[in-house]
């Protein structure tokens, strides 16, 4: 495994800048799939990371820049010592902390369910930790997950 980890670009870190538009998700998907392959992640883990990234990027592309334009920066880092994989999303759109959105009541009947909050609920389920920081004019959302040895 260690040889494969060493191959990961830029010593375990890679970044991607994307236009904040839903169509750009295809680029993000391909990029993440390549990283998952390089790290030889189990298919299921790769899929979980992809779903989480999809939900966050969707929020940014749909709501981050109401006037249009704008971009999102995505960084993936893998720490070989503790085997923690981190995906950091940074954007300069509307200040928004998704963690402050109420959790959906997943036991409520479907017709009573609130539409919002479902995506971030999934992200929290799929990752070990989700942190939000406001850094100047930037939203920084950090998702992390400990990978199995």
């Amino acid at each position: 495994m260690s040889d494969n980890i060493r191959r990961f670009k830029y010593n375990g870190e890679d970044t991607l800048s994307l236009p904040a538009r839903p169509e750009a998700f295809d680029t993000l998907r391909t990029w993440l799939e390549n990283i998952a392959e390089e790290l030889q992640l189990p298919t299921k883990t790769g899929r979980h990371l992809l779903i989480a990234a999809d939900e966050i990027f969707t929020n940014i592309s749909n709501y981050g820049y109401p006037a249009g334009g704008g971009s999102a920066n995505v960084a993936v880092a893998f720490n070989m010592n503790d085997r923690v994989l981190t995906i950091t999303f940074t954007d300069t759109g509307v200040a928004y902390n998704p963690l402050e959105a109420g959790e959906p009541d997943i036991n409520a009947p479907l017709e009573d369910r609130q539409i919002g909050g479902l995506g971030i609920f999934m992200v929290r389920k799929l990752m070990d930790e989700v942190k939000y920081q406001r850094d100047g004019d930037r939203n920084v959302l950090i998702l992390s997950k400990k990978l199995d040895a």
Partner: protein
Amino acid sequence: MKISMQKNNGKLQVAVEGSVDTITAPELSAALKGAWRDITALDIDFAAVDYVSSAGLRVVMEADKYMTQRGGMIIRNLNSDVKEVFEMTGFDELLTIE
């Protein structure tokens, strides 16, 4: 994503193929809304669906809500990856999945 639809005696059968994500979910929503007037049963086959995000779940939720008063909806043939998404969000408990 590909959608095929067939309507027989008030029953709308829909087969979806590919990914139901942010980009494609609105297409599925529009296709359903364009065809579901006057139906009494909705049957959606997900056998060829390999990916569903929350945007896809929203369309399913919207369809279930619409069909509640009209005879009901059945979702069929979720593959294990997609089923996991339904389970994670509790949708498997609330929908009729076969």
